[in-house]
């Protein structure tokens, strides 16, 4: 049974207010606590290491899988390996994410290593949200690793969001796209205080017709620090576009390091990056609509990270 704090965390990271429809697996403080498989989606416990194997049957349509992780104690370091096999011609939404509530000082850490084999013509949407709350002296750490191999004609949508309260995060995302495979990746990060967040996204387009569209937006406040590295590798007749925008405020700092690497003369690769503060005219415009400066700032950030 989950208590109110735990449901509040699940609501934040996975929009779960009650036991979800479809397949799900809830992991709490390093242990699987609730699970359901469906006719088309099988979830089983790994036998060699902590984690689950998720198999989506060929041709599955319009089904979802919730696999949230919550930590509600300190002194925990949880590593989990989740492997997904997404059957050919299937359409599935996977809602993951990790929420940490620290009841006292101390550290809580979750390393989630997710591997996906996305079958031909499949369409997978993967939503991952990270959130932390609780004792201010607690150190909450999340280090997600996401490895995806997308077969021909498949589509992968990734929404990766860190919405606050995480002291340290190192996100590592690797995607291989085969012929005509398509990646749409949206990354959103908000840091404050002395938090640190780093993200490394590596995309290899190895098949003709592959495409990747990455939009990374972040806001760094107070004295927080963010680092972004993007490696976009084109090994075929492919198209890739990375757009990285950051708002930097107060004494925060952000760096963005792009690498676009064309190993085929037919590859078309673009990287755009912009880092700056909120423009004073943006604030004045919203103030002229009756918002206070603080309300205007909040609206601008909310829209930017939407």
């Amino acid at each position, binding site marked *: 049974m989950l208590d109110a704090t735990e449901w509040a965390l699940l609501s934040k990271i996975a929009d779960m207010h009650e036991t979800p429809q479809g397949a799900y697996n809830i992991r709490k403080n390093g242990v699987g606590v609730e699970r359901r498989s469906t006719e088309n989606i099988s979830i089983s416990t790994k036998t060699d290491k902590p984690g689950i194997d998720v198999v989506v049957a060929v041709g599955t349509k319009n089904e979802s899988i919730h696999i949230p992780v919550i930590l509600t104690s300190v002194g925990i370091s949880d590593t989990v390996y989740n492997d997904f096999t997404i059957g050919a011609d299937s359409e599935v939404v996977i809602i993951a994410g990790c929420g940490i509530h620290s009841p006292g000082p101390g550290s809580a850490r979750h390393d989630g290593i997710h591997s996906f084999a996305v079958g031909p013509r499949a369409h997978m949407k993967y939503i991952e949200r990270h959130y932390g709350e609780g004792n201010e002296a607690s150190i909450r750490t999340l280090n997600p690793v996401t490895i995806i191999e997308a077969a021909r004609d498949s589509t992968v949508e990734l929404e990766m969001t860190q919405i606050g309260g995480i002291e340290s995060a190192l996100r590592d995302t690797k995607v291989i796209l085969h012929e005509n495979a398509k990646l749409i990746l949206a990354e959103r990060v908000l840091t404050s205080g002395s938090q640190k967040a780093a993200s490394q996204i590596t995309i290899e387009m190895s098949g003709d017709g592959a495409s990747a569209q990455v939009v990374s*937006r972040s806001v760094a406040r107070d004295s927080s620090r963010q680092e972004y590295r993007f490696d976009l590798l084109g090994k075929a007749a492919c198209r890739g576009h990375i757009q990285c*925008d950051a708002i930097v405020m107060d004494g925060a700092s952000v760096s963005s390091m792009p690498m676009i690497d064309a190993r085929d003369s037919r590859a078309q690769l673009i990287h755009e990056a912009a880092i700056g503060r909120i*423009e004073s*005219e*943006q604030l*004045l*415009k*919203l*103030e*002229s*609509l*009756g*918002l*206070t*400066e603080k309300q205007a700032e909040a*609206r*601008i950030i909310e*829209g*930017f*990270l*939407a």
Partner: protein
Amino acid sequence: MLKIRDLSVSAEGATNLKLLKDIDATFADGRFYAITGPNGGGKTTFAKTLMGIVRPSSGTIALNGRDITDKNVTERAMLGLGYAFQTPPRFKGLSVRKLLALALGDGATEDAVRGILARVGLDAREYLDRDAGGGLSGGEMKRIEFATVLARKPTVAIFDEPEAGIDLWSLGYIAEALSGMRADSGATMIVISHQERIIGLADEVLYMTDGRLSRRGTAADFLAGIAGEEKCGPFPTAERGASYA
């Protein structure tokens, strides 16, 4: 009524350099005023000072007898002042729908948002879900900027060069929207403009140069390029259909 007395603005960091010099002016309720004059003459600074974006070094601004000189932009907006920027800021991630809903305030309905957009000649189906950031043309942004002012239902609406950076097609819609706002809202309208079509809508034209309001008269006087010395002094002649600056 908006009353300005002895209003001066000094350049930032150079108190001896005055951008506005001892301006006296009264803007009566429900009237349409065009302020024109050469570039660098102080028009935008004057408009921004009325809205509280620029702080005066001396003088007073009173709205319906209440001194608002020390009020900030938010406070002036809440008192009924509306402002359209010459170059509307863009907002990444904020949809046109959300921007207009913010302008409409609490209880903004979908119908109200669509109605406001229609008043500036934009089709809600095409624009509401678009980002008020990149991707919209200068003319589209100006019309949306205009819509935000309409949505506020201000008692005093200030427009800083609504014609700047737009095509003739958009100018037509802006001119119609200004005319419609004048007819429908009863707001006092203060429009900085070089455009004959917009100036022609005004009840009164004020000519600003070198930080001073040096002449005032009717639009007809201005557009004809003649004004009796006994009325308001001569206006420079504007070329018909051309920018005045």
